């Protein structure tokens, strides 16, 4: 104890005053914090302008645009085919589903049929993508909870196996550029199918192990249960889609509703949550992965032979008639849609992406209000955004 501390105390003691008034000059003031765009837990270059009372969030404004790569403008200046590789880079974890959504929109625009085998391949690849995305999401979510390393390492170990499959089929690990208007670019070889089947059959065992690692973990439950709870009617009004919507209990899965591809031929359930909180959002994804495994196994069992490309499909000189089309599929993060307006030229007149994670962010502030900063990080992690898609 230093002398300057003693003397006031001594003087107070001598004057008989044993308590002193607490005068905290910062009490009641709000603190403005800018989280991001360089922040380890914002999943890229996302920024949140947070106003804090102590540690509690009283206001949160998301700031976008740090990865605004002018995707839509470029889509208007390249041909229909030329935009396909760009869709890989929208949601760069799930290029296969982006490809499919774009191919679906163009096929609707041009009235282009797709052979049966190609539709089966698309289902298989989309569900593999869902496995990949949800596995990574669980890893990143745990990373955000402060569990640095281990779950993400396990997730990426499995991701590499799926990426090996994608690479063997399409030639690239992440940027597959695999779907074409009227089918798929190449056919899957029997060896590839055998490898994919082997991976799918073993994936359940990995999920069991992964769930033993985290699902029952008391710390995870304490951190996520009741955090960021979302009401179904608000979720519908805000256009939330994907696992985040189904965690609130709303039964809306485009694989069932639109029945695109050959999904009506497969038997699977749509898992629903009750609370709409962060833990439900995590569990929905784990359950969806188990359903995805079932879908892939059914698709392998009934995969028909035949071509993977419609013989009338055109690669070059593709000019759809004037008109417009909105095509959407259930991506791993929600409804990914493409809205195309054709004026009869080789380039689309308007090329619009309906990004699921951008719209899902609408309710970020509502979810975070009243929670602490540390919870905001987890809530953001459970919404599952990819900035390439948010900002385009």
């Amino acid at each position, binding site marked *: 104890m230093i002398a300057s501390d003693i003397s006031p105390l001594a003087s107070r003691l001598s004057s008989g005053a044993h308590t002193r008034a607490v005068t905290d000059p910062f009490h009641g003031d709000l603190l403005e914090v800018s989280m991001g765009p*360089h922040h380890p837990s914002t999943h890229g270059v996302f920024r949140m302008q947070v106003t804090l009372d102590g540690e509690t969030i009283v206001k949160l404004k998301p700031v976008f645009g740090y*990865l605004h790569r002018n995707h839509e403008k470029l889509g208007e200046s390249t041909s229909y085919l030329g935009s396909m590789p*760009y869709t890989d*880079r929208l949601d*760069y974890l799930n290029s296969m589903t982006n490809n499919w959504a774009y191919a679906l929109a163009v096929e609707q625009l041009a009235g282009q049929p797709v052979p049966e085998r190609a539709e089966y391949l698309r289902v298989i690849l989309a569900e593999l993508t869902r496995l990949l995305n949800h596995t990574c999401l669980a890893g990143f979510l745990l990373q955000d909870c402060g569990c640095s390393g281990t779950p993400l390492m396990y997730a*990426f*170990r499995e991701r590499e196996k799926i990426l090996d499959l994608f690479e063997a089929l399409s030639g690239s690990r992440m940027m597959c550029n695999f779907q074409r208007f009227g089918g798929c670019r190449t056919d899957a070889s029997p060896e590839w199918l055998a490898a994919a089947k082997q991976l799918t059959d073993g994936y359940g065992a990995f999920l069991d192990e992964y769930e033993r690692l985290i699902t029952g973990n008391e710390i995870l439950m304490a951190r996520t249960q009741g955090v960021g709870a979302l009401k179904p009617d608000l979720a519908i009004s805000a256009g939330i889609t994907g696992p985040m919507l189904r965690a609130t209990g709303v039964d809306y899965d485009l694989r069932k509703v639109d029945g695109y591809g050959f999904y009506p031929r497969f038997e699977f359930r749509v898992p629903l949550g009750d609370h709409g909180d962060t833990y439900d959002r995590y569990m929905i994804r784990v359950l969806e992965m188990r359903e995805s495994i079932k879908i892939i196994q059914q698709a392998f069992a009934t995969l028909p032979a035949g071509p993977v490309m419609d013989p009338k499909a055109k690669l070059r000189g593709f000019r759809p008639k004037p008109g417009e089309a909105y095509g959407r599929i259930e991506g791993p993060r929600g409804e990914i849609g493409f809205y195309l307006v054709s004026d009869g030229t080789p380039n689309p007149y308007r090329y619009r992406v309906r990004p699921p994670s951008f719209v899902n962010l609408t309710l970020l502030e509502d979810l975070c209000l009243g929670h602490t900063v540390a919870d905001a990080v987890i809530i953001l992690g459970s919404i599952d955004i990819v900035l390439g898609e948010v*900002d385009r």
Partner: protein
Amino acid sequence: MSDFATSLPAGISEVDRTELRRQGILLTSLEEFYNWGRSNSVWPLQFGLACCAIEMIATSMARYDIARFGSEVFRPSPRQADLLIVSGTVTKKMAPQVVRLWNQMPEPKYCIAMGACAISGGPFKQGYNVLKGIDRFIPVDIYIPGCPPRPEALLHGLMALQEKIRGQKLTGPAAPRHLQPDATCDYSIPEFGAHDLEPTKNPTVFQPPVIVRKE
């Protein structure tokens, strides 16, 4: 630092030195020792921009294991980092922040432009909000082309950077920035303008050669 430290002991050829090293006798110069230490502890900034960041994460995971190169310590703060891996598209809205992060890093510092977007804007270079290469504002040491580069390609780029660090002279005009008393480590940060960044490039850093194409 005087000359004897930066040159090999006189009279010993490179062949002899390799032979001696094989026998377990290590002959080294201070320069080599210093660079050896620096090159094997390059700590990158934990800074992901876009698609390439996922491959950067994959590089630090079990399959590729960047820890074998002493670079697994991804620091969240620029104050503790030696290496800025620009992993993805730098948009004009993000460019001032990237330059600011670079300025906040202490010397000696290095920059790797990973992927087509960071080098030149890549496939998105015709976009109105895309910076056509981060080297318009900060000096880049290693360029790794690819979209995105495989994790092995990032490791190869990292090895190229280590090679570059090992070859740096500690004295003379070719010495790295942090050993030159007059060198600046502050680079001008662009401002947001009404139509574009202002300025659009840093002419002291970005000097492209003239290439003329006929019609």
